[in-house]
């Protein structure tokens, strides 16, 4: 037994947990090689260090391969309806603000059928931690197009290639008002672990997109940025306080062109570019514009795909604001007896 500090600033003696304490003992039924294994592995590794008692952590999911997740966690959990996980999580968090509530969802779950719940959850800044497993396909229903499938992607329902444009999920989350937005990759365990740790520490609407390979229905969706040969040039690792440099020898960088008001790729040492010209990453900017621009790089030819934390700002949370009102009203009115409450202020007597 050692003592750590629980979430929400409350000090309490917590048992020392190990990863095993968060495994339910039910063997995951994902296909061999599925990226979901790596994600659950990182989450189970993370939880002993978040400082919240196991019984106060809840996992809530929708429907999809990814949404089987809560069954494999040894926490309180709900496996709910397709697209609706954020609504259960919002009710639970508002009702029981002391709980740490995680939402596990897929790209179809969060952004197609659940798109409306998703944007509202982000804008409210309810203290919920949403991890979206993005395999750019409907896995559970065996391979149909999803709102993150790329233009032209062949799936069972788009045999000639998808003819609609995908969402860029972090850009959507930033646009909807999320206060924490990040991206990681199933194959980058350490990176994902660090991102999830920050997500756990953040209070407010927290969105983490994980690029997840589905070897069965959309294999290789992310090789364009995970293959050894291309990785260095294709990934932009955003780190707080550091210049946005990438490339084999870390000489390429992102510069903000004040004339065109655009981000551009430059090379340090060429055309008089020095490291000072490179944009320094700062996810704590109040104004989401730069974060939004960074999020949109991944859809632009010739640009690397950013991973890491796009945005991480503190704002009063929806649950806190609600409870401030509730507590203030309780304090002002005191303990009102039921009869007094029911009487209201306009009564008459019948003898």
């Amino acid at each position, binding site marked *: 037994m050692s003592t750590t500090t629980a979430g929400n600033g409350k000090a309490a003696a917590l048992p020392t947990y190990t990863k095993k304490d968060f495994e*339910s003992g*039910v063997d995951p039924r994902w296909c061999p090689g599925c990226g979901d294994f790596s994600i659950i592995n990182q989450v189970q590794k993370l939880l002993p260090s978040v400082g919240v*008692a*196991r*019984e*106060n952590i*809840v996992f*809530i999911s929708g*429907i999809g391969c990814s949404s089987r997740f*809560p*069954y494999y*966690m*040894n*926490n*309180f*959990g*709900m*496996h*709910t*309806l397709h697209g*609706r996980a*954020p*609504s*259960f*999580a*919002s*009710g*639970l*968090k*508002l*009702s*029981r603000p*002391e*709980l740490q509530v995680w939402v596990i969802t897929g790209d179809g779950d969060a952004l197609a059928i659940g798109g*409306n*719940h998703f944007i*509202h959850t982000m804008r409210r800044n309810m203290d919920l931690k949403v991890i979206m497993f993005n395999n750019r396909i409907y896995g559970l229903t065996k391979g149909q197009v999803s709102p993150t499938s790329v233009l032209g992607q062949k799936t069972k329902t788009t045999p000639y290639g998808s003819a609609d444009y995908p969402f860029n999920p972090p850009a959507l989350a930033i646009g909807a008002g999320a206060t924490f937005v990040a991206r990681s990759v199933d194959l980058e365990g350490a990176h994902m672990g660090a991102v999830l740790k920050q997500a756990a520490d953040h209070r407010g609407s927290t969105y983490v997109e994980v690029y997840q390979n589905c070897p069965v229905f959309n294999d290789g969706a992310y090789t364009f940025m995970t293959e050894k040969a291309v990785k260095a040039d294709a990934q932009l690792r955003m780190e707080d306080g550091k210049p946005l440099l990438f490339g084999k020898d870390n000489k390429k960088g992102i510069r903000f062109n004040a004339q065109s008001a655009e981000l551009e790729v430059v090379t340090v040492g060429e055309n008089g570019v020095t490291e000072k010209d490179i944009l320094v990453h700062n996810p704590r900017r109040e104004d989401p514009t730069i974060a939004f621009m960074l999020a949109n790089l991944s859809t632009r030819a010739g640009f690397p795909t950013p991973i890491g934390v796009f945005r991480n700002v503190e704002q009063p949370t929806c649950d806190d604001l*609600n409870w401030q*009102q*509730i507590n203030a*009203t*309780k304090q*002002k*009115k*005191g303990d*009102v*007896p*039921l*009869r007094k*409450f*029911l*009487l*209201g202020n*306009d*009564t*008459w*007597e*019948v*003898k």
Partner: protein
Amino acid sequence: MSSQTTTGKTRPVEQVDSVTIRFVGDSGDGMQLTGTEFTKASALAGNDLATFPDFPAEIRAPAGSLAGVSGYQVHFGGKTVHTPGDMPDVLVAMNPAALKTNLHDLRAGGMLIVNTGAFIDSNLEKAGYKSNPLDDDALKKNYKVVQVDMNKLTEIALSGMGLSSKEVARSKNYFALGMLYWLYNRPIEPQIESIRAKFAKKPQFAEPNIKVFQAGHAFGETSELFLSQYRVPAAKLKPGTYRNITGNGATALGIAAVAKLSGRQCFLGSYPITPATEILQDASYYKEMNVVTYQAEDEIAGIGSAIGASFGGAIAWTTTSGPGLALKSEMSGLAVIMELPLVIVNVQRGGPSTGMPTKTEQADLLFTLFGRHGEAPLPVIAARSPGDCFYAAIEAARVAVKWMTPVVLLTDGYLGFGSEPFRVPEDGELAPIQVKYQTKPNYEGDKYMPYLRDEKLIRPWAVPGTAGLEHRVGGLEKDSLSGMVSYDGMNHEKMVKTRAQKVANVIEDVPDAVVDGAQSGDMLLVSWGGTYGSVKGAAERLVEQGKKVGHVHLRWINPLPKNLGAVLKNFKKVMVPEVNDGQLAFYLRAKFPGVDPLQFNRINGKALKISELTAKVLELLG
């Protein structure tokens, strides 16, 4: 009071059992206010009463138009008043459009009080009158017509007070109110107090309105247009402290009462929809009572948030009307399979689709009973009057929590908007609600099995924060013990049967059906929900006329009372009056083979009329 001289001539005072008055005017004429103020005065005079507002679906229909007519009906009496009244005895019409849309409801020989000041050409045209209907001799033949230029008299009363013509026009409803106070012998002091209180923040408007009110009262007394005054004796009501209450207001109070009676948080996740919105609005104020409200992004998220809160141990609610109930269908099934307590309140309105949002209907009964995919039974209770919404809400929550099940509470627009005096329960009249959470392992020493049931088939409720009882619930069929996913066909069949049996077991909390009137005989009237008052009223009339007619009212629709089958068989005929096309009748035929109820159906957006139903039964009895 201005300088008018009183004639001093006193009019005879007639005593009447009960009176129905309908105030109608343009949306901007303040008829809802006039109606509620007169209602309050009747309540203070000890009358039993029931009211119903009737307002346009459009927020701001053009002034003077037929679509912009707003009304308020109050029925008050010296005996028990069951409904807001079939037909008004008195119609107060503030403009031609109001007359046009309401005159046909006025009882033959009834009193028509019209504001002649509004019967100008432009208004007549907007109402579609080719000539002034007040010049029509038939009108005077059929009704006691009292023509008063309220516009002008209000103007005179306020002359020299420096008010704009708009402000003057807005006061004329107080003139009408003043006249009715005189006509029904109400003391004027409480009303003057009430106006002062209402304008406490804008005292400059209090005096003019009081003046107009007094002018109306004096006019009644002096004008000799009224041949007599009326008195309605006090009713014999159960002693206690009373307040006026609408059905939606009562449901909201019920939610707060449940929080207090259980010592637990009540969580309401909802989305605005007519005619249910007021419940969410009212409950949003009840924070000190431990009610947490959440206006979600849609009805699905509303019930979802409630189920989430229920998983967390709150007593959870969601409130809606037909279109919203349809959206909640998948979620309701989830609550059934998870076996979490939840109360779904459906304030029914005219359907299908957007239908008639502000009009009442009882056409969601079968949808409520069967409107979920798969085998998904749940208990269904229906409130019978505005005040009963309070008790039905408490009962629904009691059953939901005890039996770990979603429960649907059906009310309707007629109950939700309607109002009646509500006797506030004394301390101790309401039993506490027991809520027990599982706190210890329940299996093989240290294990927790979330679907291990007690002898009534109720599963335990273990909430997050309880160390050692971590478990998962979900929408996939679950193993009958551990709750883990199971695709075993035999397990599924067992679970389907078990869930159904559990809901059937709720019958232990369903009181036996009680028959009023004849206990056996020629005809049994069976009502449910909001038609209670109308059917009760009709049954009383029929019994008074010596007919062998009984009345049974169903509060729980699922499960039905144990003795209902036997009760139905005690009568030669069974009739089900409903504001739908025969849904309870259909259900009873299925439940009690051999019983084939006659139907009496109106689907016109209104409550059943006692007179129509009585006439129909008399005709059938021959």
